């Protein structure tokens, strides 16, 4: 019973991280109808940048902010400079292109910082919280993880539902030609969408690095989990990303806990195949087809 409880709590914390990466994939998909297979590698890159800043300044939060800022820039540059040219072509080209970005990032990062496995600091304690004499199997860092991802989700929700900028972004993604006729600068907003998405991905990278450690391929599995979570929730749905992430976190926690940690990724694969065969549009179907 206690083990189950521990697995649940661990699963929730991990699930929030997958939700953040899933959110990144969803944002990119909504904006440009591309699955960014390099999203994990981008998150890994921004985490390395964070580590460099932390080592330079001795302050975790400078690194945190640096990672988010780097994510904004990296995503914007990638969309504007490279991805834009394949956005309207056959989907196969966009997939191969983002895979190319993945290879480039996973090669260039060790060129700069080396391929050895590094540790990454957590801003709060990662040991269990003690209440009186009892230990709750949750650490302050877990709480921070859940809190910050929820905060980001809420902020994005507010942005999209209640601000003019969010309205413009939705229009740019949903009905770009009409939006242009209304004066919306569609191109710039799509670029900004990628920037926001990569910021969310950067957050995932920061939150997973303390336990997963930092090395050039560390986000490969997380990408698979995040993609599965995004598909589970519906590639068009930000809320779906959150729900899908939590579901993945819990499922993988139980699979790893009861069947063995090496089967986690295989388990994720099984879940992905199952969803794609049974309900490929995901749990939360966004109202309508996208307009060209």
């Amino acid at each position, binding site marked *: 019973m206690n083990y189950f409880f521990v697995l649940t709590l661990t699963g929730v914390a991990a699930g929030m991280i997958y939700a953040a990466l899933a959110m990144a994939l969803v944002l990119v998909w909504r904006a440009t109808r591309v699955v960014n297979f390099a999203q994990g590698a981008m998150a890994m890159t921004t985490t390395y940048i964070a580590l460099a800043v932390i080592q330079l300044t001795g302050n975790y939060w400078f690194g945190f902010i640096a990672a988010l800022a780097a994510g904004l820039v990296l995503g914007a540059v990638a969309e504007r400079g490279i991805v834009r040219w394949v956005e309207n072509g056959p989907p196969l080209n966009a997939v191969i*292109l983002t895979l*190319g*970005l993945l*290879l480039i990032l996973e090669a*260039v990062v060790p060129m700069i910082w080396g391929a050895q496995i590094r540790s990454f600091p957590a801003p709060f304690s990662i040991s269990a919280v003690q209440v009186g004499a009892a230990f709750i199997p949750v650490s302050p860092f877990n709480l921070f993880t859940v809190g910050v991802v929820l905060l980001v989700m809420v902020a994005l929700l507010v942005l999209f539902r209640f601000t003019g900028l969010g309205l413009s972004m939705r229009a740019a993604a949903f009905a770009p030609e009409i939006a242009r006729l209304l004066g919306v600068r569609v191109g710039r907003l799509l670029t900004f969408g990628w920037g926001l998405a990569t910021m969310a991905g950067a957050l995932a990278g920061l939150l997973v690095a303390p336990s997963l450690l930092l090395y050039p391929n560390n986000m490969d599995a997380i990408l698979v989990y995040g993609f599965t979570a995004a598909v589970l929730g519906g590639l068009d749905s930000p809320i779906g990303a959150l729900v899908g992430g939590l579901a993945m976190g819990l499922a993988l926690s139980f699979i790893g806990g009861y069947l063995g940690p090496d089967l986690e*990724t*295989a388990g994720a*694969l099984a879940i*992905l*195949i199952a969803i794609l065969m049974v309900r490929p549009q995901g749990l939360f179907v966004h109202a309508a087809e996208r307009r060209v």
Partner: protein
Amino acid sequence: MQPRGACERGRASLSRVGAVRPALLRHSLLGVGLLLVGAAAVWAIDPYDPFLVYQLSSVCYFAIGAAGLTVLTGLNGQLSLGHGALMGVGAYTTAVLLKDHTDLNPALVMGAATAVTAVASIIVGAAAARLRGPYLAGATLGLAVGLPGVAVRFSNIFGGDAGTSIPALVPPDPLSSVTPEVWLTWICLVPTVITFVLLANLVRTRYGRDFRAIREDEVASALYGIRVARTQVLAFVLSGACAGLAGSLLGYTSNLAAPGSFPLTLSLLLLAAVVIGGLGTLPGAVWGALIVVFFPSWITSLNDTVHLPSAVRDQLPLALFGAVFVVAMLAFPHGIQGGLVRLWQLRASRRKAGTPEPEGGAT
């Protein structure tokens, strides 16, 4: 232009059959010829550069894997990022078979590895048949990242993280003067040639046309009577079988089947070979295999002339392959083979333009 009656039609269909048979014959003769030339070349090069010979065995299995993938992705339009994992299935089958029976005939072992992977591919292919584009890519990505973990989990069968060793191929007594790497490469050349001959012929048949038709327009193909799902699975099984065979050769070449030998990068390298060589062309698979194998070692050898820090040198091939993906999608969707084809067409048209008109020039 329709045949005017049963007689004509009969003759027409006979000539179609007649058209295929010469092609098969031609390909087989070409294959045997290439095999003999290749074997002789390998034997000749060996005293001067045994490592090159060893690398040629790598080219063989990459070529087989790339050939399968180019049929699946280039012809049929299904992008798979999991073929590295399928190579792992082939390699592990080889390892498990040889664990207790070290002197099994390599042909049998390779055949078994191919068959086992083909069966696995039926399952994967059936699951994948309904997926398109990024969904298929994501699912096969999961395969690539997840399957090695299975080998670790069942370490009593598969040897865990360290993997299972595969005994080296030893030439039989009458050929004991042949060095191990030459023997290895000879053994690798045979299935390579066979695979290419078979695929080259398959591509010309109805199946090849169906593959292409589905990639071009799935709805139209279905309306035309092509059984889309079945054909998709067939393409997957074919390419999976190639991957299994390639994995078996990989196992014989590296004497090992371990989870670390089949990372996501391997799948991406296969894809790189296909993209660089030219999506959908069999000669392109050869080009791609050559580049994927020789480019990294060329970079390493550059170290003698241009001193690069080791970190840069080690990662440069992957970075450049990634750059090739990006550039290829932006500028050259047809790869080397496509570029060569276009050059050929350009030369042909220029030659035609330069030829003077035989008569007064009435068009």
